[in-house]
């Protein structure tokens, strides 16, 4: 498979020219190709937002659900057919705002899927309101005097919630991002990949340039050990002149599905649903 094979060719892509979402799209297709995944075995699940449109642009199965609710259907899809590769895409408002509850609970379950969050630190599709990752002081249409709430730290939340793979990428570095998506998919368990995705229209602070000047790659730092929780805890708080990208944390833990004896004989939907419940009926006799 080549990245081009995943192209959804009939329609025009509807993001603003220069949007960071293009980088994520490209990296995803690269990663699928590198991993040799068949289009029909991938399900891309998303919520609503500029980010949420991504499944439209790739020739895989797609599920563009409700704003904030990408993870619940994704989990169910995985549970009923664990032969599928489930990749979930969300916005920062979508995934960390309205979808926060699902986010935390998904991580503790540790189902095998990759969760990519297009973190542009703004509500794009609704025209520029503050999101849960907007920085303090930032002036947006919903905070004309500046944000006064501390932004959330998705990586720290993931670390605190037993996510078993935690990464961060940058839509301006597609090669690196491709590799992260590949690793995230390959990881057995729940993988969170937060991606800096500049919104060229509504976020004039966290631009491509902003990140180009600040990001550095953890894998280039020999001493960094992503299996060390304490190290991860400290590094996840680094923000300012230098901002780390790469794999911040990983660990091995059995996945949810692997602990279900029901799946020993294969995916649920391949099992015959016709069953004899006579024994159960006896309990009511």
């Amino acid at each position: 498979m080549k990245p081009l094979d995943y192209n959804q060719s009939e329609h025009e892509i509807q993001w603003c020219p220069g949007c960071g979402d293009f980088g994520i799209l490209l990296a995803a297709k690269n990663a699928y190709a590198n991993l040799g995944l068949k289009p029909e075995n991938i399900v891309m699940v998303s919520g609503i937002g500029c980010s949420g449109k991504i499944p439209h642009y790739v020739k895989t199965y797609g599920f563009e659900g409700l704003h904030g609710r990408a993870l619940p259907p994704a989990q169910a899809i995985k549970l009923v057919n664990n032969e599928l590769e489930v990749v979930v895409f969300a916005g920062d408002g979508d995934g960390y705002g309205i979808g926060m509850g699902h986010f935390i609970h998904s991580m503790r379950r540790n189902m095998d899927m990759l969760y990519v969050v297009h973190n542009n630190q703004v509500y794009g599709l609704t025209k520029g309101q503050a999101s849960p990752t907007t920085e303090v002081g930032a002036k947006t249409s919903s905070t004309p005097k500046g944000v006064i709430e501390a932004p959330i730290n998705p990586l720290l939340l993931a670390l605190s919630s037993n996510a078993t793979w935690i990464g961060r990428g940058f839509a301006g570095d597609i090669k690196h991002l491709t590799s992260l998506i590949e690793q995230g998919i390959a990881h057995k368990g729940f993988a969170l990949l937060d991606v800096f995705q500049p919104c060229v229209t509504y976020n004039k602070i966290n631009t491509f340039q902003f990140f180009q000047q600040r990001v550095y790659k953890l894998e280039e730092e020999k001493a960094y050990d992503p299996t060390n929780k304490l190290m991860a805890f400290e590094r996840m708080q680094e923000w300012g002149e230098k901002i780390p990208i790469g794999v911040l944390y990983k660990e091995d833990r059995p996945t949810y599905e692997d602990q279900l004896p029901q799946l020993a004989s294969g995916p649920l939907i391949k099992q015959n649903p016709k069953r004899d419940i006579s024994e159960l009926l006896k309990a009511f006799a």
Partner: protein
Amino acid sequence: MKPNHLRWKIGGQAGYGIMSIGQTISRAFSRGGFFVVGYPEYPSLIRGGHNTTAVRISEDPVFSVDHKVEVLVALNKETVEVDLPEVIPGGAVIYDPSDYTEDPIKLRSDVLWVAIPMTQIVKEHTGERVMRNMIATGATMGLVHYPFERLETAIREGFAKKGEEVIAKNVEIARIGYETAKESAIAGKFPLTMTPVEKPRSHLFLGGNSAIALGALSAGVQFVAGYPMTPSSSILMDMAKVEQRYGVIFKQTEDELAAMNMICGAAFAGARALTATSGGGFSLMVEALGMAGIMELPVVVVEGQRPGPSTGLPTWTSQGDLLFVISASQGESPRLVLAPGDVNECYYETAKVFNLADKYQLPVILLMDKHIGETYVSVEPFDQNKVQIERGQLLSPEQASKMMQDKGWTQFKRHEVTDSGVSPRVIPGTPGSPYICSSYEHDETGWTTEESDKVKAQYDKRMRKLEGLLHDIPGPTWFGPEDAPLTVVCWGSTRTAALQAMEDLAADGIMLNVLHFTYLFPFKAAETITALQKTQQVLNVEGNATAQFAQLVRTHTGIEFEQHLLKYDGRPFFPEDIVNKVKDLLIKSK
């Protein structure tokens, strides 16, 4: 008092096994060939409060308990205070003298006071306090001269998992109750006897919630997600128990939003999926219900009604969510709404509507309530062979690729515009037909569209499904004599009280028939008009304050009911509610 007809009620604090003992006594009689129906009442508390279970036992079929009993078992004083008026003259009250300093006979002299020193017996036999209910049950059997072995068997079955020691203790203590009652001077004065019938029937014995779970299992449900909420939690817990045995996945979710969105995902991926909740949880499912509509996903949602608004009365019953579930979610999307009328329908209709969900690719709402969900009755054993699994237009990979070839499609048209409104579907994993399933309005391939004609084509296509569906579902059902001067119209769980009232009134020489609706939306307007043309006077009976079903009928037929019997205090209809109202009406109309 008729032999072999016993209405029995037990009352006490929560935590004193009021519900489980109701099951035990019911089983003892059911195994003796009797028909039984049992109705538990309890507050939203874990301990304390006033709990009761009423059981009606008869050699003839019974539908509903009522507010009269031949025997009341009072495990505490409060039960006497609250429930004494229900005892019919000549009836008996089994009580514990240690609750009283004075003889309670002065409270009512027209009933028999059967003193059973339960607290003392428990102490003497080193039993636990909770076992007083077992003594009382034994005493009941003694009082009506029912063979003790029947109770012993029921105890053995009920406690099978607890081991021989527990069984022995319970049997011992029940027997003491039995003997004490039988030998008491008063017992001789009590005229009612219960004798096992000749050919015992092989009844099942269960409530509507259990039947729903069984029906879903027979229908091949594969994925169940839910968040506990009274009165539907038991359906979820039943699934938790059997998931590994039957190849089902049960997922308890973080909330109802997740549950509903999950079953949508599961349905998209090809599984039969169900959730169960109550009105509050359903409120959180409303958004995803519309999503299931636009995505054309077959899902089944059990909505067990309890009185609202809001948290309301968690452990009581209601029929207050009808119009809500019919019009829930923004915009307009097709759905099927039904409310089973008895435990049999809970099983068979559940199994059936999984097929309808698949056939029309839309959500089904099974409107239950606490009353039908938790009232247990004896029914003919369910016949699994009657259940067929029909997945509708779900294409195999071969069928899908053939279809694409035949139609010359380069892209699979998941939402193809068809006459029936139904489009063949594929599931992820099918080669060659990846498509996007989207909550946006879309064209036939799933691609987002805002073009006027495509929007309208999809909207119409979806709504068109209701036409076929309307054809596939049955209209209302008649019970009773055709030419009755008065017809009770009712829906869902109210049927049991209506049928019982019909029988009770027949005994008084009053003729009545019942027109009952199980399928509620889409609405069978033509059949309803025809049916109502046969009526003389109509009494609409439903468990809400605004006569929601009557509104529905008027919306779709223009027909207005003039007489209503509405109840919204959390109690189900009891037959005498209807009996009294009918008598009132008949007097007035004379």
